[in-house]
């Protein structure tokens, strides 16, 4: 029984899109705070958000697994609420979200930093509250970078493997993403299936990255 390529592809895209939507609101607010506000622990927050970029994904997966499994703190709480995360699609989305977050925050932050700070100050002197300044000035002006960051996070999510296989497993029909399926086929010697999925994976990532680069170009032009 070979899972159809379209099903794995659709599942991967849906999870990556879900992960991107999930991190977009907090990620954008965080990027703006890091770009514009001085607050205690700013350096710590900045470093913490970027950690998944440099940590081995397997280690990130292990931390998530320990937190979320039945014996973990968060996991025990979720179990009482009847929510299962480990070995389900929710774990896939979560792993993808965490791995994509630094890319979104860093790219969006660069966009917010390019916005002329005078516009924001003028709005503030005219009595606009910070939330309004953010929504009507900063966000619209930094929008191409925010979008580019979201696309980068999406592309990273598509290829996520290390954390996914630890916390979500390789469960055919339930948690199998393109990257995980490629690993499975390569490990069982089914190279032609692995290459077919690789081709799909590379095509989607290529389009996503190309889009992200065009958006960044437009925002810096």
């Amino acid at each position, binding site marked *: *029984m070979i899972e159809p390529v379209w099903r794995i592809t659709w599942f991967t895209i849906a999870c990556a899109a879900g992960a991107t939507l999930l991190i977009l609101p907090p990620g954008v607010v965080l990027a703006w705070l890091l770009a514009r506000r001085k607050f205690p622990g700013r350096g710590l927050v900045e470093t913490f958000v970027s950690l998944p970029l440099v940590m081995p994904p397997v280690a990130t997966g292990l931390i998530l*697994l320990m937190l979320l*499994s*039945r014996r*973990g703190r968060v996991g025990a709480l979720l179990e009482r609420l009847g929510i299962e995360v480990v070995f389900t699609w929710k774990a896939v989305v979560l792993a993808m979200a965490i791995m994509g977050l630094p890319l979104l925050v860093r790219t969006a932050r660069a966009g917010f930093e390019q916005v002329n700070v005078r516009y924001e100050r003028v709005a503030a002197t005219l009595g606009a509250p910070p939330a309004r300044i953010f929504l009507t000035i900063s966000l619209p002006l930094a929008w191409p970078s925010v979008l580019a960051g979201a696309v980068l996070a999406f592309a990273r999510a598509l290829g996520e493997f290390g954390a996914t296989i630890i916390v979500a*497993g390789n*469960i055919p029909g*339930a948690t199998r993403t393109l990257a995980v399926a490629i690993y499975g086929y390569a490990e*069982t010697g089914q190279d032609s299936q692995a290459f077919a999925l690789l081709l799909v994976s590379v095509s989607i990532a290529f389009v996503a990255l190309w889009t992200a680069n065009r958006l960044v170009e437009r925002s810096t032009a």
Partner: protein
Amino acid sequence: MLHRWLALCVAVLLPAAQGVPLVKPITVSAAVSLTDALTAVAEAYAKTGGTVRFNFAASNVLARQIVSGAPADVFISADEAQMDVVAAAGLVQDGSRVALLRNQLAVAVPNDRPRTFHSIREIAEPAFKRIAIGDPAAVPAGVYAKQYLEKEGLWTAVEPRIVPTGSVRAALAAVESGAADAAIVYRTDVRVALKATVAWIVPADRGPRIVYPAAIVKTTASASEANRFVNFLRSGEAARIFQRFGFATAF
């Protein structure tokens, strides 16, 4: 604003959650090398009214998941060492551990330079400049390969030519691509290789004892169903399927 985002998240994610059966199947964490054989066994098992879902990964990954509290009902490991890890954590249900399958080591060579060994000593010939094996520090197949070469008194002679790889499949891929002149892998791996051929099958009485153990995880919530599946794995019907995929049964 927040509500709209959540609604959007749900709309995107819901289709991914569909197709989940109403009756909860048992989760079987199994060595990735067993993917094809076990998928076929599960199809036969389904006819008896049981459903399983598999989680396939390297045995050390599976063991870590179980020890960390991941919800697995049955564990099928590619080596005893990883089952020992789970047992040491007190997570193997008493009396449920069984030897399921046996495998053998084989020497694979590229199929454009086929060889047939009369003795394993031939691997020490200068023609074999690079010999790929799974990393003996971590990969079970590599541990077995090193044990075997040591037992045959060949390890010191070939050690400078050993290329350790991250998995047994990577060792085979090195031979298939021509990057290595030989690899020591499982017999079942060479069976499905397109660009490699067997030069030597390690005789069962000379090689290391390679056993795939199976056990029920102590924390399972479906002990009777897990037990039924493990019994099915040891049935004549399952044995025929395993043999079809090149495994010898150990029961």
